[in-house]
């Protein structure tokens, strides 16, 4: 099938290309001979610097203008859902970390709540545990938004905001490393409790970090979001109208950028979010059209401020109302054996990327789920790409991909 390597030229030619090779890996939608006059098919990814992982796009371009676009996914497929059918409920948690690896805490939080709901122990979970969960989840939400905004800056061509935000994200990762021992994949939130209580002094350090990061975010806003060149690059680009957003079932910052005030933390009011005071920023089209790339990025940045607001409240509650006590055991309500009754359950929550949902099916006899289906926000948000990226310029395509902020680990699972 493959042409043999000529013996005498091994040092000169490393790889002999043959059109068969492409056919072997993944079928292309557009064949070379079916292209119209002047069209060119460009393969973008999976090793392209701005596809944020291993997304592969088959792009038809007429000069610089995109005429067709076809995403190919599955390069990071790790059989998450199939694995779940062989693992106990508690063992699934580390796998959940590896779905959306930039905001693992949020996914863990939602999964833990889903299983608690199956077991009907939601009411028993101590408030301190819930506040700690929200605290770490919101910290991770800020980290995730920092990655989203920073890498978006790199897509547009500004490297400095990226490194500034990475510097500040580092502080979050160090806090979480202190707490859990891991920088990105924590396995910290357990069904019914937590792995550990907060280490002594964590609340104070957390507050110190919040005081530090607030002016830094403002600085980034001035350098990047309000920059004239950034505005002309992103305003009126990749506009997702509210109709389109609803029809594609988008969620998270992408949906809110289009103007719908939908945040599951408010709408479903799970965990202790009803007790916390925060706003839901929505895109207004301040620089261009409602639902353009600028709006989505702006919404992400505003959400960082809201998360900081939530964090201040959490820290205060954890220092006063739900103080650390010597007899507090975060694992007190962790069930010894997780065996839910026979049922179907769909539970959803808000991750930085959008609505993450777990559909769990149990047979009531085993401690292994029959089926665990994940409704991934990144996958759904990515599906809108071909609809909005038609007829735009090549540079705009990169801007649109970045503004959707997907993590391929969650798209492919």
């Amino acid at each position, binding site marked *: 099938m493959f042409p043999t390597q000529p013996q005498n030229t091994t040092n000169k030619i490393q790889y002999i290309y043959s059109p068969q090779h492409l056919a072997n890996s993944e079928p292309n939608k557009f064949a070379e001979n079916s292209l119209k006059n002047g069209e060119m098919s460009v393969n973008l990814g999976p090793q392209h610097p701005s596809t944020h992982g291993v997304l592969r796009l088959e792009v038809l371009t007429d000069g610089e203008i995109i005429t067709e676009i076809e995403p190919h996914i599955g390069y990071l497929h790790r059989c998450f859902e199939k694995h779940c059918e062989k693992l106990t409920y508690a063992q699934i948690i580390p796998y959940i970390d590896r779905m959306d690896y930039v905001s693992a805490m949020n996914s863990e939080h939602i999964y833990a709540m889903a299983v608690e709901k199956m077991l009907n122990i939601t009411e028993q979970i101590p408030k301190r545990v819930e506040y700690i969960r929200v605290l770490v989840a919101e910290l991770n939400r800020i980290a995730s938004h920092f990655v989203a905004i920073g890498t978006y800056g790199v897509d547009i061509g500004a490297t*400095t905001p990226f490194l500034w935000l990475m510097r500040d994200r580092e502080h979050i990762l160090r806090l979480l490393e202190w707490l859990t021992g891991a920088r990105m994949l924590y396995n910290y939130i357990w069904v019914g409790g937590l792995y550990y209580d907060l280490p002594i002094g964590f609340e104070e350090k957390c507050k110190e970090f919040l005081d530090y990061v607030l002016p830094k975010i403002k600085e980034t806003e001035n350098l990047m979001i309000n920059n004239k060149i950034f505005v002309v690059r992103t305003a009126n680009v990749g506009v997702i109208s509210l109709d389109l957003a609803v029809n594609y079932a988008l969620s998270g910052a992408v949906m809110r950028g289009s103007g719908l005030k939908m945040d599951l933390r408010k709408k479903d009011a799970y965990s202790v979010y009803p007790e916390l005071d925060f706003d839901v920023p929505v895109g207004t089209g301040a620089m261009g059209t409602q639902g353009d790339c600028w709006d989505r990025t702006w919404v992400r940045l505003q959400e960082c401020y809201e998360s900081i607001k939530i964090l201040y409240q959490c820290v205060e509650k954890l220092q006063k109302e739900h103080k650390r006590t010597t007899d507090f055991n975060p694992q007190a309500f962790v069930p010894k054996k997780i065996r839910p009754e026979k049922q179907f359950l769909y539970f959803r929550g808000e991750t930085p990327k959008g609505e993450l949902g777990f559909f769990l099916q149990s047979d009531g006899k085993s401690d292994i789920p029959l089926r665990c289906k994940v409704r991934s926000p990144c996958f759904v948000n990515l599906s809108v790409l071909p609809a909005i990226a038609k007829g735009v310029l090549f540079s705009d395509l990169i801007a649109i991909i970045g503004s959707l902020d997907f993590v391929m680990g969650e798209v492919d699972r």
Partner: protein
Amino acid sequence: MIALLFFLPFIAIFALAGVYVERKLAGFIQDRLGPMETGKFGLLQTVADIIKLLTKEDIIPQKADKFVFKLAPLVIFVSIFAGFACIPLTATMVGAGLSVGVFYVLGIISLDVIGILMAGWSSNSKYALLGAMRAVGQIISYEIPLGLVVLCVVMISQSLDLQEISYKQGIWIGTNGFYFSAQKIYLFGITPIDITKVGGFLAWNIVQMPFLCIGFVIYFIASLAECNRAPFDIPEAESELIAGYHTEYSGLRWAFMMLAEYGMMLLTSFLAVILFLGGWNTPLPNIGFLALADWTSGMPNTIFGEITAIFWIFFKVFCLVFVQMWIRWTYPRLRADQLMYLCWKVLIPFSLALVMLCAIWRILM
């Protein structure tokens, strides 16, 4: 001959030092250290990079047009290097004292485009082709405002000779018997205040003819686009086109392209300094008994004169290169159509108006 012997190693060393300084500067702007591991403060980092590039395998894509592919880096490098030939470093040190130096430099810079197109086309890669297409469109467009602004300077100085333009911006006009012993320099060109013996920054073209301040800004923007530097690094936009026209290049050929980019930065900065900022003349004026200009610049053809001239021209050039780097690490990148908008609808009308103004000004002078 001096220029050849001096500039070739100089560009190479400048590229080495420039890469190091740029990385350190980027590190400073981005709140990190930059290279620290190789040598003291990472000073040997670029040397290590060069050794790496020298030892890399020289890959030529199988489907590339091999002859053109090999030729392209040379065309790019040579066209930029040749531009240095008539840059006057001091009052006497100039590679080729052409009487049409400005014309020659602009002409030879344009050849750079052909090399870029050759590189992009011969690579037989779609990204390289897109990059080359963008680069050619960009560089040819930006040569128009650049040329028009340079025309303004030529009108004011009444000369195409870079050495003569330099002489006319300082206190050494009329010395040594050559270059217009009778000519005088007036403050703002038309006022009757004779500043021939005052010199300093007051004699610079941007002060002699205040409208040239706008011209300088236009020139600087256009030169950023000519060098493919941010925010106009659209041809090699790494997040879109991987590396643009040099996507398929590796090893030494790639190093030549990099060298050419830094050479271009240097060349446009030299040209900017000579045309607008007084060339090798000192920026400090003579104020009464404080003869700062006399103290900080020596008579042409003397050793002190040569040393001070070299110092001042490099000081100014490095300031401009620093600003180019600073801009690169601050601003995002424009889009290709926005770049064209800026060129054709903003810069060209302004530079045309400037040409008119300068022409009228010249008549009044």
